């Protein structure tokens, strides 16, 4: 029983897989039940979540701050837009998404190699330049990329099998908007499961080691450059995927959608939620998606006119940001984890106050050359090499 419980825990790979399946089921159910507008909002939350999840891995786990992830989203979005120019393009969505990932991975690798050599503010500056420059490219190559007007994205028809399945489950035909929302959430859940795998694996540990101490990381055999580039590429792939989903959800890809604001929004999402935690990235994305609308409605509710209530949103957004940084500097999820950790720490130290860390008192050991287990150490459960306890 305990073993089953352990396998199903999210700390276990199988548990994460199962959680993912449940997550997809819940997401599909929720999207089917809410109205068309909410479904679109949920799609926005999903694409922000995908990109933010990638960014939180890069910044939280590997310690590289990128202010240019909006630009990487743009690259994914334009790739998707070029593959879906009109209704009869007929490119299947999985192909579109994979192509967006592939192109962003290539760009991410190049940027990552440069980024791996930069630190702190220099890295932020270089990626900031990326965020500013990439939308400009769309205007420069106006013939192919549509200039200021941008490219319209035509979402392919809902596949018949999926339409049938949805009709069977909900009794309605899914609209295209809802279809995109389903796809976005399935992608989000898959991305979260895969990134959680990575974060808990050897690869994730190497990234953390690089973040915490470069010298010590090298000494345990970690190639700093390779791991930095790898982290950047993984995170870029997520940004590209998020961008492609954004193109599908918005149905338009234009430079105005990928301004510096988008990059900063992503950073805000991961800071709000808690750096380095995937749950935090999703919560951050949810806040950024729903907060403005909720606040605007609230403004209308307390008798403000339209303009005033529209102005209320950025104000509350800023206020929330300031409050989180002041009161929960590790972010919402991060602070919760820290609080739990501190409680757990208090409990262990309480236990430790009892019997002191057992140290077999001095004597012999260096001369017991035969590998006879030492007689006087009740604590050593496994055979310790001579003289090696304490």
């Amino acid at each position, binding site marked *: 029983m305990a073993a089953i419980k352990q396998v199903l825990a999210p700390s276990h*790979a199988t548990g994460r897989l199962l959680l993912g399946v449940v997550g997809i089921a819940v997401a599909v159910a929720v999207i089917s039940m809410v109205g068309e507008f909410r479904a679109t909002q949920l799609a926005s939350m999903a694409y922000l979540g995908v990109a933010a999840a990638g960014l939180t891995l890069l910044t939280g786990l590997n310690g590289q701050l990128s202010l240019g992830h909006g630009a990487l989203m743009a690259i994914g979005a334009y790739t998707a837009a070029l593959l879906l120019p009109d209704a009869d393009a007929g490119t299947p969505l999985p192909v579109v998404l994979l192509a967006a990932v592939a192109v962003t991975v290539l760009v991410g690798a190049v940027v990552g190699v440069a980024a791996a050599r930069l630190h702190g503010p220099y890295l932020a500056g270089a990626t900031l330049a990326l965020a500013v420059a990439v939308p400009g490219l769309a205007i420069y190559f106006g013939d192919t990329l549509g200039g200021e007007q941008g490219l319209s994205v035509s979402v392919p028809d809902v596949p018949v099998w999926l339409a049938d399945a949805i009709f069977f489950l909900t009794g309605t035909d899914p609209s295209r908007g809802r279809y995109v929302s389903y796809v976005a959430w399935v992608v989000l859940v898959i991305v979260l499961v895969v990134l959680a795998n990575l974060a808990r694996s050897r690869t994730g*540990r190497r990234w953390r*080691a690089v973040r915490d101490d470069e010298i010590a990381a090298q000494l345990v*055999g970690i190639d700093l450059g390779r791991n930095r580039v790898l982290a950047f590429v993984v995170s870029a792939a997520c940004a590209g995927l998020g961008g492609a989903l954004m193109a599908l959800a918005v149905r338009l890809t234009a430079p105005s959608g990928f301004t510096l604001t988008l990059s900063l929004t992503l950073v805000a999402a991961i800071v709000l939620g808690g750096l380095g935690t995937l749950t935090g990235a999703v919560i951050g994305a949810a806040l950024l998606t729903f907060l403005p609308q909720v606040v605007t409605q609230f403004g209308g509710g307390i008798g403000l006119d339209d303009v005033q209530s529209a102005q209320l949103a950025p104000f509350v957004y800023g206020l929330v940001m300031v409050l989180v940084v002041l009161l929960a500097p590790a972010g919402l999820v991060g602070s919760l984890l820290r609080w739990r950790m501190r409680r*757990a720490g208090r409990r*262990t130290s309480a236990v430790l106050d009892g019997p002191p860390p057992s140290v077999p008192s001095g004597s012999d050991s*260096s001369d017991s050359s035969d590998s006879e287990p030492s007689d006087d150490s009740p604590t050593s459960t496994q055979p*310790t090499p*001579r003289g090696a306890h304490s």
Partner: protein
Amino acid sequence: MSTTATSAPLFGMHGVTVTFGGLTALADVDLDVEPGQVLGVIGPNGAGKTTLFNVACGFTRPDAGAITWRGEDVGRLRPHRLASLGIARTLQGLGLFDGMTVLDNVVAGADRWARSGFWSDLLALPRSTRDERDLRERAMAALSELGIAEHAARYPAAMPYGLRKRVALARALVAEPDLLMLDEPASGLSEEEMAELGELIAGLRSRMSVMLVEHHIDLVMSVCDQLVVLDFGRVIARGRPEEVRDDPAVLDAYLGVEVDTDSHPAPDAVTHLGEGPR
């Protein structure tokens, strides 16, 4: 492994010279570490001990000289290649990964034993899971060897210095290196802890060679098989501890005076150096 009767040294530095600007940090330094040997590098402050370690680890490129591993020239050494060669090093500043638990710190040290790659990590294939379990077992064994297994779930930043020092040592030992380099292992330790450390190092001889830089003469004298004494970047003496202890050049370097002409501080120094158990 067993190099039979030829017994090439495990690790060697030959004619290593390092200059920083006009300053010579190391001048034509030679040293060999034999298998199973504990080699101590001592010398007054600024003698070049840390530079020597940094050259040995590839953090500093020497202007001249060669580094050999098992009798072969390793060429240009890169720090992240050390672990796979079988060299582990502790740092003076410990360099623990503060954002990771004690267990994860030590598991990171065992990285050279992991085989799983990026894709199997991404998909959490059974191979990765198995690998992780193996590393975790190795790390727990290293932690209990040093008597700190019960701290596995804690974060190092919140732990007292002595314990953190053991975590750093466990992280080096878990790699099961053939050569362990210890940078000031006794600094900040109490008398009692230092005695334990001495026993520990002596006990490592059967498993690996040890090269250490240390200020505490007592520890060095009791635990080392061979000493190399540096002063102003030069080797001024080498040999077994009892030989080095009576070397006039060593006394001179530590006191900055000619021992046999100026009699005032000399007796003190002799007793200080002589305190170490034989």
